[in-house]
């Protein structure tokens, strides 16, 4: 039993590190490291750098323009990105809709959409949730009626992440209510955000940021050719995507990065006072988080080992999202506590690299720690809430 990488894998790891050292832009690094949100342009610029390297789609097969990497390579890559605290590729294009299109879409759709996803020339957003349909997604009501050469779409999607930047939205819509199971009336539609009748209304999150939106569809005409796969099969396609989303959420390396930052920050005197770690209460909580994270790392490696030899991941994979978000939230709390009173100022203007240092309140990411703590309560809510995840484990793993 060991977790030693092969010589090729080690060489690959070195290649990723060298790439990050040379190509990860300084200004983006600075923003990331001080917890400043990236602009739309920052995100696209970084994704294009990965694209030029040929590393945009680490989860896609080669024939569709992906890297075709082995699970171990993907693991190494994502680990290095996390360890460098570099931005992750936005999930909506490459992680979510891309695989649906190359798996269930027709050739024309592949030609039309995949290249722009790879090159980040088109921004996608995810239109699943609705005001009345969150955990119970299959109850969704957004209606798409077939009328000649198009669908007429009416309804509201909500909590749509970064829809304000999006060129396209992929949606689950109801094409029929005359079915035995409500899931069978759901279809998968691709909708151009510029189509008349589509409107986006911002939703401000707890930390004062426009991260999510409501997207309204009022008599929106969507060409029939924008249907993915078969009518009434959207639910099965969408479900594949959800599973995909779940296994991508452990974010072990990023939590490790944050843990190290926490230990560094709390281990030294920040404003001339004694280090937080001098308090055994605090040191104990940090150790507990570290232990939980170590367990998670090995759980993830077990999953990886199974997948690497072509086996289906065992029940341990289904706990990755729950535990992954739990560790993230433990770290959020500890970073907040470490910042002490400097967690409290709310000065959005200073979360900009140009803001004069002399005017700043607190050091670096301190005053962002509270906002991160507030915002990241979402981690246990979205992508299938942790309660829903546990229901899934109870049903499919425990057979209850």
């Amino acid at each position, binding site marked *: 039993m060991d977790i030693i990488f092969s010589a090729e894998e080690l060489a690959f790891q070195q290649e990723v590190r060298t790439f990050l050292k040379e190509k990860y832009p300084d200004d983006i690094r600075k923003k990331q490291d001080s917890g400043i949100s990236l602009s739309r342009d920052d995100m696209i610029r970084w994704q294009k750098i990965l694209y030029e390297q040929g590393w945009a789609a680490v989860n896609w097969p080669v024939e569709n323009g992906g890297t075709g990497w082995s699970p171990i390579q993907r693991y190494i890559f994502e680990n290095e990105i996390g360890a460098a605290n570099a931005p992750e590729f936005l999930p909506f294009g490459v992680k979510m809709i891309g695989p649906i299109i190359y798996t269930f879409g027709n050739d024309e759709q592949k030609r039309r959409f995949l290249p722009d996803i790879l090159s980040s020339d088109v921004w996608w957003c995810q239109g699943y*949730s609705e005001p*009345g*349909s*969150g*955990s*119970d997604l299959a*109850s969704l009501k957004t209606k798409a009626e077939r009328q000649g050469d198009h669908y007429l779409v009416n309804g509201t999607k*909500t*909590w749509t992440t970064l829809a304000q930047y999006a060129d396209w939205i992929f949606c689950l819509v109801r094409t029929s209510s005359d079915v035995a199971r409500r899931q069978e009336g759901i279809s998968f539609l691709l909708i151009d955000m510029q189509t008349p009748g589509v409107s986006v209304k911002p*939703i*401000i*999150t*707890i930390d*004062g940021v426009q991260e*999510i939106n409501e997207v309204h569809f009022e008599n929106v005409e969507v060409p029939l050719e924008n249907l993915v796969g078969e009518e009434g099969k959207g639910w099965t396609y969408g479900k594949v995507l959800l599973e995909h989303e779940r296994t991508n959420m452990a974010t072990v390396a990023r939590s490790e990065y944050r843990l190290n930052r926490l230990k560094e920050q709390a281990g030294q*005197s920040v*404003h*001339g*006072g*004694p280090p*937080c770690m001098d*308090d055994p*209460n*605090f040191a104990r909580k940090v150790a507990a988080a570290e232990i939980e994270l170590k367990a998670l790392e090995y759980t993830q490696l077990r999953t990886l080992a199974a997948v690497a030899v072509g086996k289906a991941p065992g029940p341990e994979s289904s706990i990755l999202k729950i535990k992954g978000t739990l560790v993230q939230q433990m770290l959020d709390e500890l970073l*907040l*506590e470490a910042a*002490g*009173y*400097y*967690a*409290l*100022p*709310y*000065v959005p203007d200073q979360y900009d690299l140009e803001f004069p240092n002399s*005017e700043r*309140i607190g050091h670096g990411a301190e005053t962002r720690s*509270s*906002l991160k*703590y*507030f*915002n990241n*309560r*979402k981690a*246990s*809510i*979205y992508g299938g*809430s*942790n*309660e829903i995840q*546990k*229901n899934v484990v109870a049903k499919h793993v425990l057979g209850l």
Partner: protein
Amino acid sequence: MNFSLSEEQSMLADSIARFIDNDYGFEKRQEIAESEKGYSPELWRTYAELGWTAVPFAEDDGGLGGGPIELMLMMEQFGRGLVVEPFLATIVLAGGVLQRAASAPQKEQWLSGIIEGSIQAALAFSEPQGRFEISDIATSAKANGDKYILNGHKNLVLNGANDDLLIIPARTSGSQSDQSGITLFAVAADSAGIERKCYATVDAHHAADITLKDVQVDAAAVLGEVGQGFATLQAVIDEATFAVCAEAVGIMRTMHDKTVEYSKNRVQFGVPIGTFQALQHRMVDTLMACEQTYSLLLWTAMLNTANDPDARKAISALKYQIGTAGRKVAQEAVQIHGAMGVTWELDIAHYFKRFTAIELLFGNADFHLNRYIELS
């Protein structure tokens, strides 16, 4: 044994509760919070007219002679209403110092105006290096003839942007974390040499970081005895800690109630989400946390009313409970609201943020657990 309130106490609690229900709805609160000052000067006058600003002060000073029970009742309601007016800063903190340490002329100069609602004030209880340790004071006050020269840095001065009064604890002798050698100064907010960086805090309250550069104050500005300010400072911070705990209890209870209500109305899978046992048990847990915390609050109020030797220890117990069991209540409320819980639009998010600020104010759970052990 008697946990019931006196008639006057009930009337006080009821009058604030009515005000919150009728005049301080969430939308109104948000409007006030987003206004320039971050609170309503107009409502502050109303609070004064209703006598609320007088409650904690002795009758001889023009107050109503209220004690911990009255303060608790008020703060619970302020928590429920997410009140942003600077009651904690002006009345409990600055007023608390003046009531305990000011001379008759100083009370005439400052405290009367505070009670009347015409003077705003702040107590600079923290320095950057001190974390939660109030005796850690590097700000110096050097005697110079019949004046003092103040130099130093204060952070998170609540209501520190006010135009009237800053109470500055500074060191006249001793080394940085000594309890002796701390002197309290009443400094006019517009004194030369005071630089303020003012900001809103995450809970929509307001604070300032203050730099004092050769600020000259008269000897007449000393509150109490030179070098003996710590006892006052500690008593005031204890009372303020108790006050924010009561506020937090009001917040916890409100978050819990709103969550239970939400779970009865939010339908998923064809049924209200409150019918899922996974959520029911968690709401029972938050109910238990609310009840246990309320019990500690009453215990603390009683010990502090009686000046019991364990009064301070009780405050630490309560603050620890707020930072642990209370935090769980707040987090569960957000979680059970789903995505709604992390939106700016919903009050739950704002209760969550105020609660989090209170967790840190005057020392978090770790700090008070240590203090509890020290006092045991």
